[in-house]
C-alpha cells in the first residue's frame, strides 16, 4: 500500500523533471569495433528469390550431385561511434558475404574439323564472394546506450562480387558422341578430357558491382563494461549496376558464355536478403 505510494513518489518527483536527460554510451564509452557473423537460410530468407530454373550442383564423392543452396553466410567488421547527443551513431561497415551461384549449363567446345559444338554440363556451384563497404547510421531507441542496446541501422553502400578463384568441378550431362580429333568420341569423354587437362574455364577476374541498402535491427547486450554481444536481423536490398559486356570465356578450343555465368551471379547478388546477425563488439 504505502510502499506503492513510495515508488510512485520517486517517479512523481522525477517523471516530469526538466532534469531528465539521456545518458551517452555504455559507461560513458561511445566508440566501438564490432565483428559480426551473418547467416541466412535461403529457403525463407531470400524474399522474392527465383533461381531461374537452373540446378545447383555440389561435389560429392568425385562426382557432382544435385543440391539446393540452403545456407549462406558472411561476416563484417564495423567501426563506429555515437554522435554527440548519444541518441544516434555512425559507423563504417565492411565485410564479405558468401553465396553460391549456379554454374553454366553449356560448355562450348571447338573441334577443328567440325567447328564449335555445345556440350550440356553440370557445373559445380560458383562460390561468390561479395565485398561490401557501407556507411551506416544507427538510430537508437529513446534511452538506449548506444553502442549498446536496441538500435536501428540504416545503411547505403557499395558492393563488389567476384567468383572465387578455385578449381570447380564439372561433368558432362550429355551421353551422345561427337566427332572429335578424328574419331567419334562420347561427349562426356570429350568434356572430361578437357576438364582434366585445363579445368573449368570460368572467368574469375571480372567483378559485378552494385549497391546495397540496409535496414537492420540490432540488440547489443552488454556482458561486461567493454564487451557487448550483438544479435539482430538485417534486411538488405541489393542492386547491381547495368550489365557490362562480359563476353566469352575462351580457352582456345573450348569456352563458356560469361553472360550466363554473370547473370547467374547477379541473380544471387541482387537477392533481397534477410539474415541473422550474431557478433560481439568492443566498446572503447
Amino acid at each position, binding site marked *: *500500500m*504505502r*510502499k*506503492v*505510494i*513510495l*515508488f*510512485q*513518489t*520517486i*517517479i*512523481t*518527483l*522525477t*517523471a516530469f*523533471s*526538466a*532534469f*531528465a*536527460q*539521456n*545518458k*551517452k*554510451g*555504455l*559507461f*560513458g564509452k561511445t566508440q566501438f569495433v564490432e565483428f559480426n557473423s551473418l547467416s541466412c537460410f535461403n529457403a*525463407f530468407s531470400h*524474399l522474392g528469390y527465383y533461381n531461374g530454373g537452373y540446378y545447383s550442383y555440389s561435389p560429392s564423392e568425385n562426382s557432382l550431385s544435385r543440391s539446393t543452396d540452403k545456407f549462406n553466410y558472411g561476416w563484417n567488421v564495423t567501426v563506429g561511434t555515437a554522435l554527440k547527443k548519444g541518441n544516434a551513431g555512425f559507423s563504417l561497415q565492411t565485410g564479405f558475404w558468401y553465396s553460391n551461384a549456379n554454374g553454366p549449363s553449356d560448355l562450348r567446345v571447338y573441334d577443328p574439323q567440325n567447328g564449335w559444338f555445345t556440350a550440356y554440363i553440370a557445373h559445380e556451384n560458383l562460390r561468390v564472394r561479395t565485398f561490401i563497404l557501407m556507411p551506416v547510421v544507427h538510430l537508437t*531507441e*529513446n*534511452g*538506449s*546506450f548506444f553502442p*549498446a*542496446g*536496441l538500435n536501428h541501422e540504416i545503411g547505403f553502400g557499395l558492393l563488389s562480387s567476384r567468383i572465387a578463384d578455385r578449381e570447380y568441378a564439372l561433368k558432362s550431362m550429355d551421353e551422345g558422341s561427337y566427332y572429335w580429333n578424328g574419331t567419334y568420341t562420347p561427349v562426356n569423354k570429350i568434356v572430361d578430357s578437357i576438364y582434366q587437362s585445363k579445368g573449368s574455364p570460368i572467368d574469375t577476374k571480372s567483378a559485378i558491382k552494385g549497391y546495397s541498402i540496409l535496414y537492420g*535491427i540490432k*540488440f547489443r*547486450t*552488454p*556482458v*561486461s*563494461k567493454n564487451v557487448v554481444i550483438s544479435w*539482430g*536481423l538485417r*534486411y538488405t536490398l541489393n542492386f547491381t549496376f547495368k550489365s557490362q559486356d562480359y563476353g566469352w570465356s575462351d580457352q582456345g578450343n573450348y569456352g563458356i558464355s560469361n553472360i550466363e555465368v554473370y547473370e547467374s551471379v547477379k541473380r544471387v547478388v541482387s537477392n533481397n536478403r*534477410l539474415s541473422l546477425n550474431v557478433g560481439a563488439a568492443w566498446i572503447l
Partner: protein
Amino acid sequence: MLRFSFPPAFRRSCCILLTAAIVSCKLLGQQDFNHFQTLQSQGAIPGDFFKATSEKIAEDMDAKRTDLSTAKEKEFLENIHSSIDHLLHSGSVIYGDEISEYVSAVADNLLRNEPELRRQLRFYTIKSNETNALSTDQGIVFVTTGLVSQLASEAQLAYILSHEISHYTEKHVIQTYSWKRENAYERNRLEKLSAYSKEHEFEADKLALRRYHAAGYSKEEVLSTFDVLMYSYLPFDEIEVPNSYFMTERLYIPDSYFATKKYPIKANENYNDDRSSHPNIKKRKDAITLSLKDYANWGTVVFSQSVEHFNYIRNLARFESIRTDIISADFGEALYSVFLLEREYPESVYLKQMKALAWLGLLQFREEGHHNKTVPASNDYEGESAAMYYFLRKLNKNATQTLAIRNILDLQRSLPEDEMLAEIRKRLTKTLAGSSHFSWSDYSTVDFHTMAQRSAAPPDSLKTALSEEEKPQSKYDRIKSQKSVNSIERFDSTQFYFYGLGDILSDTAFLDEYHNYKNEYNARKAHEEKLNAMTPKERYEYDREHKGETDNPLAIHLEKTVLTQPVIVDHRKGKPDRYASEKLTMKLSEILENVSQNHGVEINTIDHNDIRLNGTASFNERSTLYGLLEQTARYEDINAFPADYMLLKTIRETYGTSDLMYTMVEHHYKADINIAIIGVSTLLFPTLPITLLGYVPIQLLRGHRTTISAVIIDAASGTVKTAYHVEMRNKPGAYYLGSVYNYLFSQLKQTH
C-alpha cells in the same frame, strides 16, 4: 592541529550503540510529552521485518498451512506476503514501541488460556490516522495510531483485537481468497463478495465476544466500540475552539472571520453498506446485542492496566497523529489536534514545532494556490473542528501570511534555543522573500485597536491630536501620508492582518534576514528575466561565453550520500514478479556501490541487507528516510520542511552528509503487436513474410520498457536538490543499469 577521523563503519557502530542506549533508557521511562519524539521501533527486529519475501514464502510452503493445492498455495502465499511486506517495509509500521507493547499486553490478557495461539501472533503499529485494525493470514495484527487515538478504554481495544484474532483463527483471509478465485466470473460479483465478507465480519464480531468475555472485560464497552468506529472520521476529541485562540496581544481578528453557526455531526449508523466489505454499524450493533445474551457472568474490567497508562498510550497515538497530518499536508487537522493537546501540554516543544510547521505549510500552499487541499472542504464540516476549518479557509493570502508570521515568530521567540523552530523561521522568511504578494510596506506599525480607536474618534479632535505630533507637511508628504497603511483614511477593519505585526517591523534582525533573502531572490529573478528576454542568437552567444558555468542541474558536487533502499520492480504478465524483483534489487545495491566508488562518491546504503545486519537502528533510519520521501511527494512542488527534522539531523551527523538518495527501477515487457496488421498481411499473402520476419520480431525486441528514477533530497531543508528520470527500451541488466548510474554519478559529482 591534529585531527582524527574515524572510519564510517566505526562511527556507525558508535551511533548504533548510542541509539541502543537511548532506546533502553526510554524503555525504563516514558516519553515526556513536552519533548515528544515520533515513535520508533524498539528491541530486537522480528523476522517479519528482515526476511526476504521469497524466504517467507518458502518457509510457509514447507509448513503447508493451507489445504490448497501446491500451485494455488504458492499463488496465495505470494499474494499475501508481497502485499504485507509492502506494508511492513513502507516506513509506517513499527514494532516493539510502547503502543505495540501495550496492544500485545492486551492480547496477552485475551489469550492467557491459549498460549499456542498467542505464540503465533505478532502485534505491530501502523502510523496512520485512519481508524483501523487488520489481521493477516501470517498471524500479524496491525493496529493504527488513528484507532488508538480514538479509543475511550482498554476494553474497546480488547474487543477490536479479539475481533481481529477471530479473523485469523477462522482463516477468513484464505477463505476470501478462495471465494474470489472460484467466483471470478460471477455476475454481480462485487455485491456477492460484499455479502460474503459481511458474513465474516458478523462471525468475527460474534466470536470476539468469547475471548473478550473470558478475559473479564465489561459488557458495556462492547457496543461503545462501535461508536468509536462510527465517529472515527472526526478528530479524536470534540472541543470548541474559542475565537480568541487565534488572536494574540498584537493581533486582533474581527468576528467576521469566524463561523457563526455550529456544524452538526451527521453520522448515521444505518448507512448503505451494499458494496462495503463491512456491515453497517446498526446491523453490527443489532447482531452483537443478540449475541451478548449468550453470555452470562460478565466481568467488569474496563482497564486491566491503569487508566493513566491507557491515557498515556492514547496520547502517544494522538501526538503521533499530528506528525502524520503534517506529512500528509493536512494542516487544518494538524492545527485542531495541536489545539486539543495544547490544553493539557501547553509547554510542549513538540506541539510548538508542529504548530509552526502547520502554519508554514499553510503559507507555502497558499503561495502556490494549493491551499484548498490542506484544510477540509465546507461539505466536510462537522462538529467543533469545523470552526477551525471555516476560519482557515476564510483567510486570504495576506491574512495567511500575517498569521503564519505571527505564530511562527511568537513560537520561535518563546523557544529561542530550539534549532528546529529557528530553521522553520528561516524557511518562513525565505518563503516571504519569494512571494510577489508580500511587502512589509503594507504593514502598519500601529496595532488594530489603536487604529480602530483613531478612526472612531471625532475627526477634529483626532486631527488636533495628530497635528501636535506632526511637522508642517508638503502636498506630497500629505499624499504619501494618505496612502500610508498608517493613515486613518486607509484603515479597513476587514484588513486586520496589516495591523498585527507592528512589533516585527521593529525587529531589525528579522528584517535584515528577510532583505538578504529578498535581494538574493531579486537577483535570481532578474537573471532569469534577462535570459528569457534574449533572442536565440543572443542566448547562443551568452551560453558560449559562459560555457564553464554549467547549467547542469545534476551537477551538485556529490561526495557522500545516504542511499535509501534502492528498489527494482520487475513486472511480468502485468504484475510485479517478486522473485525477480528481489534478486534484481540485491544486484542494484551492488551496482550502485561499485559505480559510486568509481566516481569517488561515498555511499551508505540503508537497505534490507543493512537492516538484517544492524537491526532496529537501521530499520528506524530507513523509516525516517521514507517519511521524508513521503512528505516531499505529498507537498508536490512545494519544498517541505521535514517533519522529522531532528531525526534527520542525527542521520546527517552519523553519515556526515545531508544528501539523501532514493532510486528505483521499474521494468515492464509488452510487445505492441497489432493483430490487425498480421490479419491484413495474411489476407495480402505476399506481405506475410515481411510481417512475420520484420514487423513481429522488431516489435518483440522493442517490448522492454525500463524506467530509472533517482532523486536527491537535502535532509537539512527537505528540498529536492536534483532529480533524474530516464526510460530505456532494454531489460534492467546489470550493465545497462551500471551505465545509467555511471552517467548519473558522473554528473552528480560535477560542481555547478
